[in-house]
């Protein structure tokens, strides 16, 4: 019987090099995703497939492709693929000692217009990224109308350790909101410059520790809060939330243009309250129209990240303090958030490969 020799590591890498990452536009070997490759004398091949995010939308496809391609090589008797993820550090750290030293990626959620569901999206985006296995924080940058404490059922006051605040932990997330620092129904009555200071304090004086993603829930508008954030931290990108009707998409576009001016990449547009399924008749109603955000995204040349239905469950669970992706993971709303989270994660990975100008003073 002729003996088939086992393939070399290079032969294995050569076939794996046929797998293209659709988001990063290069093959997975060039991207350095294949690690700890071993070929045993008996023809068993094992390696680690390291993704740039645990919420990778093509995770399962990559695994199957890798198993099939390597399994087809002559001499291979078994394939073991260990799927892991290591979120890349965002491209630039101006002063790593001060601002968010252990945070790899910062994702802002903005809208321009109020009341479109930014906080609901931010909370569920953070929860969905956490469910995929990432370490996630959520910073509520809405000083006047903080919603994160109610939506996450976390109303405790942060502890102070060595002069720094410890984030509140809930649903596996690290949280910080002005609603935690000043609980109760007292209003925060601040002029603009104070808002900037408050947001900076939540970044600098809070011990965020090591995070793959810090999701930042921005207040509506294109003023102090957004500017402070874009000036203080190198944001990986911003996801813009809007509802389908023109009055919302028009303002969302303004928000997007502001972030463009500040050189913060747009991860894409999210359409919230996209449709409603009547519990009586089962009919799908598009209360605010249909496809407004998708059309706006196409017009502006930014990705459309997905649409979220108007569901009683999303509202009820937000009021009870559990994000819908945790309380009803099988609902249409939760599925929509999961899809959007993996899209956001993929777009964030692309941005981490981006180059910025390098400045040298001499």
């Amino acid at each position, binding site marked *: 019987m002729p003996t088939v020799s086992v393939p070399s590591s290079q032969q294995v890498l050569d076939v794996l090099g046929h797998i293209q990452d659709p988001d990063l536009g290069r093959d997975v070997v060039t991207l350095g995703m294949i690690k700890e490759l071993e070929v045993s004398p008996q023809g068993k091949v094992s390696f680690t497939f390291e993704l740039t995010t645990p919420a990778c939308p093509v995770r399962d496809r990559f695994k199957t492709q890798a198993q099939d391609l390597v399994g087809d090589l002559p001499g291979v008797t078994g394939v073991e693929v260990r799927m892991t993820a290591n979120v890349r550090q965002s491209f*630039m750290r*101006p*002063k790593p000692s001060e601002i968010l030293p252990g945070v790899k990626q910062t994702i802002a959620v903005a809208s321009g217009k109020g009341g479109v569901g930014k906080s609901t999206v931010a909370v569920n985006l953070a929860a969905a990224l956490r469910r995929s296995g990432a370490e996630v924080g959520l910073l509520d940058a809405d000083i006047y109308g903080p919603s994160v404490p109610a939506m996450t059922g976390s109303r405790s006051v942060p502890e102070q350790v060595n002069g720094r605040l410890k984030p509140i932990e809930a649903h596996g997330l690290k949280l910080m909101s002005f609603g935690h620092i000043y609980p109760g129904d007292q209003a925060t009555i601040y002029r603009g410059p104070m808002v900037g200071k408050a947001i900076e304090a939540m970044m600098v004086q809070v011990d965020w520790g090591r995070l793959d993603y810090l999701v930042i829930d921005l207040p509506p508008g294109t003023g102090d809060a957004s500017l402070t954030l*874009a*000036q*203080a*931290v*190198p*944001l990986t990108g911003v996801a813009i939330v809007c509802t389908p009707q023109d009055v919302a998409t028009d303002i969302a576009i303004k928000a997007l243009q502001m972030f463009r*001016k*500040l*050189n*913060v990449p747009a991860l894409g547009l999210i359409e919230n309250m996209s449709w409603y399924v009547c519990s009586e008749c089962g009919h799908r109603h598009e209360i605010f129209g249909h496809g407004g955000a998708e059309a706006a995204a196409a017009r502006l040349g930014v990705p459309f990240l997905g649409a979220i239905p108007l569901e009683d469950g999303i509202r009820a669970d937000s009021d009870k303090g559990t994000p819908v992706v945790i309380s009803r993971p099988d609902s249409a709303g939760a599925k929509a958030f999961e899809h959007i989270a993996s899209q956001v994660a993929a777009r964030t990975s692309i941005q981490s490969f*981006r*180059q*910025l*100008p*390098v*400045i*040298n*003073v*001499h």
Partner: protein
Amino acid sequence: MDIAWEDGKQSTYTGEQLRWACPCAECRGEGGAPGRLARLHALSADELRIKDVTLVGQYAVQIAFDSGHATGIYTFPYLRGLGAAAKP
């Protein structure tokens, strides 16, 4: 100060050039009133020496001069335009 751009091009700036290009309201003037740079013909040496350059988010740099003047935020597109002699 040198900048290596994302597209591989290089720009070089002198402190003097950057000081005279300071975009801040005090230097440029605001609301129709002329700024300080429009009234002056010469600046002292410590006004022209760069002391520190800090990144502002990812869209601009803030340049501090030895004189203490540091209010100018120079956006990357503005700097790219100033360094018209960007070399490949």
